[in-house]
């Protein structure tokens, strides 16, 4: 579907992005990533100095990576959508619904784990498909379309689960839980969930940087009309972008339910904001047309490091969100400042 054999209209169309601009964009993006990465290092070092014996240990680094998995998966999808100048508010409760669906497939219908996972991913893609359809064909603003989907998913998660958590069987579904908390390398203390996150990032990276979908994503986000004028079926590609995002949402649902050994229908609200925060910290612009999968990963790690570090130094919890919010303001402000300077030149 994403084969590079198709002629790529963007390459011939100076109306969309000139090669120079594209090059400049790439450098800017690299700088942004560097900035985010530097931020991650600084925060990590700061906590290491404050709590040297407890924070900067192998097992705690594993804790940090592990707790970034769910938000990381969701944020991969959020990035794809935000680059297209859209927004997806349904990733949090969509995650909860996908978790419930995973439990429905495996626990209630008794399907094998691998099939349950595939169906759950397909279901997530389907939620995204509806989102994309609402945005393109019904012409709803992405904020409204996905806000509605957020509510629908929140409700359906409760309806389908009969307002009760669904528990996986510790024996029959041991392999499902193994995906999150098991150790592929025995005794390494390295939970499989981290491999899944790495895999998700690699897939998102390829999708975004090496396929037509990613290129059109950027193009639609920077100038939708020009993209349409250059003969690209914007609607089709937008639907696919939302569907891809939905698949990552489903992956988030799989990872959280595999970790907890149960599908919790009432969770999920608020996760979308964390995913959007990770995306924005990573340098993806809410205005669209610019983004980075690696940046988003770094953003998710920054959130995880801050949460973990503040818990370890036992800062009263009410302050933890204040710190996190402040970091977002600082990071995005620096980003905008740099963009303004670039434009002034």
């Amino acid at each position, binding site marked *: 579907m994403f084969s590079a054999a198709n002629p790529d209209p963007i390459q011939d169309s100076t109306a969309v992005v000139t090669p120079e601009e594209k090059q400049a964009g790439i450098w800017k993006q690299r700088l942004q990533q560097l900035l985010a990465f530097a931020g991650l290092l600084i925060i990590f070092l700061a906590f290491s100095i404050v709590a040297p014996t*407890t924070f900067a240990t192998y097992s705690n680094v594993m804790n940090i990576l592990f707790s970034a998995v769910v938000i990381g998966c969701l944020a991969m999808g959020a990035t794809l959508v935000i680059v297209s100048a859209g927004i997806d508010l349904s990733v949090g409760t969509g995650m909860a619904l996908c978790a419930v669906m995973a439990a429905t497939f495996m626990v209630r219908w008794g399907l094998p784990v691998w099939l349950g996972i595939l169906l759950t991913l397909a279901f997530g893609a*389907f939620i995204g498909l509806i989102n994309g359809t609402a945005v393109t064909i019904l012409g709803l603003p992405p904020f409204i379309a996905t806000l509605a989907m957020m509510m629908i998913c929140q409700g359906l998660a409760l*309806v389908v689960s*009969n307002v009760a*958590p669904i528990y996986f069987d510790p024996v029959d579904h041991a392999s499902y839980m193994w995906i999150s*908390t098991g150790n592929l390398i025995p005794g390494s*203390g390295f939970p499989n969930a981290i491999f899944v996150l790495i895999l998700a990032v690699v897939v998102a990276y390829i999708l975004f940087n090496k396929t037509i979908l990613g290129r059109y994503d950027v193009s639609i986000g920077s100038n939708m009309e020009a993209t349409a004028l250059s003969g690209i079926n914007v609607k089709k590609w937008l639907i696919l972008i939302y569907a891809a995002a939905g698949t990552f949402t489903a992956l988030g649902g799989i990872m959280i339910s595999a970790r907890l050994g149960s599908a919790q229908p009432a969770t999920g609200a608020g996760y979308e904001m964390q995913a959007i925060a990770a995306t924005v910290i990573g340098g993806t612009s809410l205005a669209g047309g610019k983004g980075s999968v690696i940046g988003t990963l770094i953003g998710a790690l920054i959130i995880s490091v801050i949460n973990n570090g503040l*818990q370890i130094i036992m800062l009263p919890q009410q302050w933890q969100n204040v710190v996190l919010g402040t970091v977002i303001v600082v990071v995005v402000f620096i980003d905008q400042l740099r963009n303004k300077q670039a434009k002034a030149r």
Partner: protein
Amino acid sequence: MRKTFAALAALALCFAMASCGGDDKGEPTTDPGTADKPFISIISKGFQHQFWQAVKSGAEQQAAEMGVEMEFVGPASESEVEQQMGMLDTALAKNPAAIGFAALDSRAAAATLTKFKDAGIPVIAFDSGVDSDIPLTTAATDNKAAAKHAAENMCRLLDNKGKVGVIVHDQVSKSGTDRRDGFLEGMAEYCPDVEVLEPQYGGGDQAKSADIAKSIITANPDLTGIFGSNEGSAIGALKGVEEAGVAGQIKLVGFDSGKAQTDAVRAGTMDGAITQDPVGMGKAVIKAAVDAINGQTLPAFIDTGFYWYDSTNIDQPNIAAVLYD
């Protein structure tokens, strides 16, 4: 073409949903206008949590027994104070014979409750009190005493030494603060030599509470116990201990029941927990409401009770009756 596709997609979603929720029972619609039986409206704090489902089932049992009609509603989450106020207004419009009300915010409802008083509709508070003299009685668990009892058991498990982490589900609501304060008070009283760490708040979210538990364990390698103030906090603590690879080395005391927690207690991975009696609470609300409709005087507070359960008594009939999945 496209519109057809969109419509088909939407239709498919509906079917998918309908087929999944197969064992969903349709709610009986209550029409207060035509029923001869007294109609009691119950407004809870939510309906998602298993606790509220258990309250609901208790209320339904008692309503069937006493021959009254009832409805059981609640806001989508336990932070939707405004939505709950709207439900109070809606209930008033239905002119019920009595209402049961579990206030999310103990003060916000005062004005609306006055309207019930003016209309002569008796108000029964449950789960948490209301700062008002309008409710005829309050049927609730004494959360502070219950958490203090949890501390007493934690002290017994720890033999008066060690270091304990506290994971609380909420730092604002009365149930959160009462359980936190009750536990801290109990620890200070029953085992003053045990160090109790600054309470952390996980919003009752299992994943978040598990992350907090791991952080506490990392920061305090000499930790000997964790208290979780509700089901989500306690299960989160258990997950955190398991993920940190220190299962069995840390004493775990929880609160509430629910399948995951009762399973853990039965298996001994959780040392024990306090359970409220939600079914009894639901029954008490309906009974108090019917008594009020019949003009009987009610006590100011109905203690619906709490119990400590662990692997030794979990299957005893009196405990099994108050545990819910």
